[in-house]
């Protein structure tokens, strides 16, 4: 079972949402769920910092949300399907989020996808990537 969890850690650029991440990100993800209601989205947009205070998450998690630093949010226990609700609230496409997380422009990301997407070659294993 330790083996089960460890195996994923060899995969580059990927956070697997296991028990550790889920426990770490519980309140961050609950905040994201709250954005499924239009009234909450409006309240969040009106004063993001104040809204975030309503959820017992860490200061680091709050900062990551304010900065829309999705990779940081992932590292701090956010799950992408929950985090996507922040993107939706911002009116951002999933492609824009994906381009941010992979540190390229949205155009470059779109072009990569149209050209067939990111290749798995060199992306299977951390050792292979080096």
């Amino acid at each position: 079972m330790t083996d089960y969890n460890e195996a994923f850690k060899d995969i580059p650029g990927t956070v697997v949402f296991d028990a550790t991440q889920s426990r770490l990100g519980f309140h961050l993800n609950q905040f994201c769920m709250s954005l499924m209601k239009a009234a909450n989205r409006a309240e969040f947009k009106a004063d993001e910092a104040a809204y975030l205070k309503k959820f017992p998450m860490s200061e680091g998690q709050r900062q990551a949300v304010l900065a829309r630093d999705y990779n940081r949010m992932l590292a701090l226990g956010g799950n992408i399907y929950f985090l996507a609700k922040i993107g939706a609230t911002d009116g951002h496409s999933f492609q824009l989020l994906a381009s941010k997380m992979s540190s390229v422009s949205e155009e470059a990301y779109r072009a990569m996808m149209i050209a067939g997407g990111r290749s798995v070659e060199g992306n299977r294993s951390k050792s292979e990537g080096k």
Partner: protein
Amino acid sequence: MARIIAGVATSHVPAIGVALDQGRTQEPYWQPLFAGYEFSKRWIAEQKPDVVILVYNDHASAFSLELIPTFAIGCAESFAPADEGWGPRQVPVVEGHPELAWHIAQSTILDEFDMTIVNRMDVDHGLTVPLSLMFGQPDRWPCKIIPLAVNVVQYPPPTGNRCWNLGRAIRKAVESFDPDLKVMIWGTGGMSHQLQGPRAGLINREFDTAFLDGLTRDPLALTRIPHVDYVREAGSEGIELVMWLIMRGALAADAKEIYRFYHVPASNTAVGHIILENP
């Protein structure tokens, strides 16, 4: 006697729903994708299923981290489209088939699957996008739908082998249901895609093609793929493919592939689609 006449698998990318709902299906970006479902729409109009058992995953819409069922079967009269953060999709309400859904719940629980029975649930793009792809934009979905939500968000998801066996148990359940119904089972999600982190945008056509081939050639081999291989080869969200094994497990061993479509990209995703008919 009810019987499963066919299985359908298809990706369920949210952007496809947006393109449809905004009338952008003829744009150059989207046209090839929707063209790939033209055959399927004609086929299903002829098949006229009475009920579709729609295997999908909830994407943090109906289920938060407060409660995460591995397998949840929708037994309600109806299911409303979920608000995923930009308002609910303007598609028809999904009408359930409570009699058959409860029958499947009972039969699978007695066959030692630990189902969660759900009587109130909103359904997100994972369920409604496949309906749009297969049925277009009618005022009312032309058949009853039984949602079967599978956890693939919180690790660990069910094993491929477990999904396969659930499919088998569903087939047995359907075939022990008296009314003479034409039932389809759909598996949704996949194919290769990764929505998160620096590796976002990963696509693996080779893996996807082998998976599609395996569905007819050697489905049991697919049931032995470990979770880590899905994530490594097909991206973190490629794990959704385990749901296709529920569909496949519910079909006959010699189910026949009658249609296949593969297209990259729809937003971040490799779209795969296959139709298998029971003999």
